[in-house]
């Protein structure tokens, strides 16, 4: 009883969070909260087997599958605000509220009487009782379930399978492609420059500096660049670098913190990264 009144507000709030969460990962975690709450409610209602199954199958397997697919699809596959059908959201919320009110009032009206309780049914244990039913009264449904699971597994395999259309690139092919690119387009033949300035920072997100002080754009991962997490090389590091130049030459290229001379180099203080956020 106490468990119900503690858990039900948490579960309703988490379920509401599912509606409003901008990120799908947050929605998945909130759903996990709801499911764990439900499993405790099963335990309260004399269903220890379903409690275990809820935790293992739902929270453990299904939600992890959800998170797995979310990571494959891309974490930032968030909803757009533009509605395809005008006023769809408002209407959906209205209809949903109406439906909910009708359902709650209806359920509230029903006189369930005093619950019989499962003390008698669970007399020789919940699991033996369930097994007794499952393998006698519901044995055909149980068999059909096995067919369903096999079909689902095969279907998922067929859907997820991808036939390779082009032959797999070998190392020799890649090397030949590099040489062709060099011959035709003059692409640099060697490896890309490594990121990091004096290895002082979390080096993969700081572009390396070219001898003239410009950040080397190819030294940081394209993925980090689109995520907007690339940090500029710190100004004092560049100053330190240029101070050691014996002729006192200033760097010719644009340096960090100088937005006016930055043309297309986007990873500097205050300059917007492609997704519109400031990189600093």
């Amino acid at each position, binding site marked *: 009883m106490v468990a119900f009144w503690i858990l*039900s507000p948490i579960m309703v709030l988490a379920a509401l969070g599912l509606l409003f969460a901008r990120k799908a990962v947050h929605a998945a975690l909130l759903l996990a909260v709801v499911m764990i709450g439900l499993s405790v*409610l099963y335990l309260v209602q004399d269903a220890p087997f379903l409690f275990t199954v809820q935790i293992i199958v*739902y929270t453990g397997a299904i939600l992890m599958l959800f998170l797995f697919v979310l990571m494959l699809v891309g974490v930032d596959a968030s*909803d757009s605000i533009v509605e395809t059908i005008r006023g769809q959201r408002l209407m959906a919320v209205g209809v949903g509220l109406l439906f909910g009110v009708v359902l709650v009032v209806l359920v509230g009206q029903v006189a369930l009487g005093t*619950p019989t309780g499962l003390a008698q*049914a669970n007399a020789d244990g919940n699991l033996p009782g369930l097994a007794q039913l499952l393998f006698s009264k519901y044995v055909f449904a149980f068999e059909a379930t096995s067919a369903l699971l096999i079909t689902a597994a095969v279907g998922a395999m067929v859907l997820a399978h991808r036939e390779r259309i082009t032959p797999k690139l070998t190392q020799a092919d890649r090397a030949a492609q590099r040489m062709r690119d060099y011959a035709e387009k003059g692409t640099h033949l060697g490896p890309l420059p490594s990121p990091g300035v004096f290895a002082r920072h979390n080096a993969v997100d700081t572009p390396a500096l070219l001898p003239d002080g410009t950040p080397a754009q190819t030294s940081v991962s394209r993925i980090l660049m689109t995520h907007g997490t690339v940090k500029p090389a710190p100004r004092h590091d560049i100053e330190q670098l240029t101070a050691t130049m014996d002729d006192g030459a200033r760097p010719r290229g644009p340096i960090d913190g100088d937005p006016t001379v930055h043309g297309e180099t986007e990873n500097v203080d205050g300059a917007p990264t492609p997704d519109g956020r400031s990189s600093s």
Partner: protein
Amino acid sequence: MSGSPFLVLSAILFTIGCVGVLTRRNAIVVFMCVELMLNASNLALVTFARVNGNLDGQVAAFFVMVVAAAEVVVGLAIIMTIFRTRRSASVDDASLLKY
């Protein structure tokens, strides 16, 4: 305790799942809302099992869980396939059959 509070909670969760299916655009979140609705109905089934004093409701909830597992496997595979070809997990983008 009486079964009514559990049923009301189940109804509320079902409604929230319903509204989520109607409003959310990300196919995976829509799927999560379907799962929420299935779970809400499971709570009602378990409550009815306790109220009636037999285990049939719990067996039904167990079957719902099995079917939900199968449904999630196939559904997520379909979402992955659509994402592969269209590079989008939005339910509104897959509208080619409309035209």
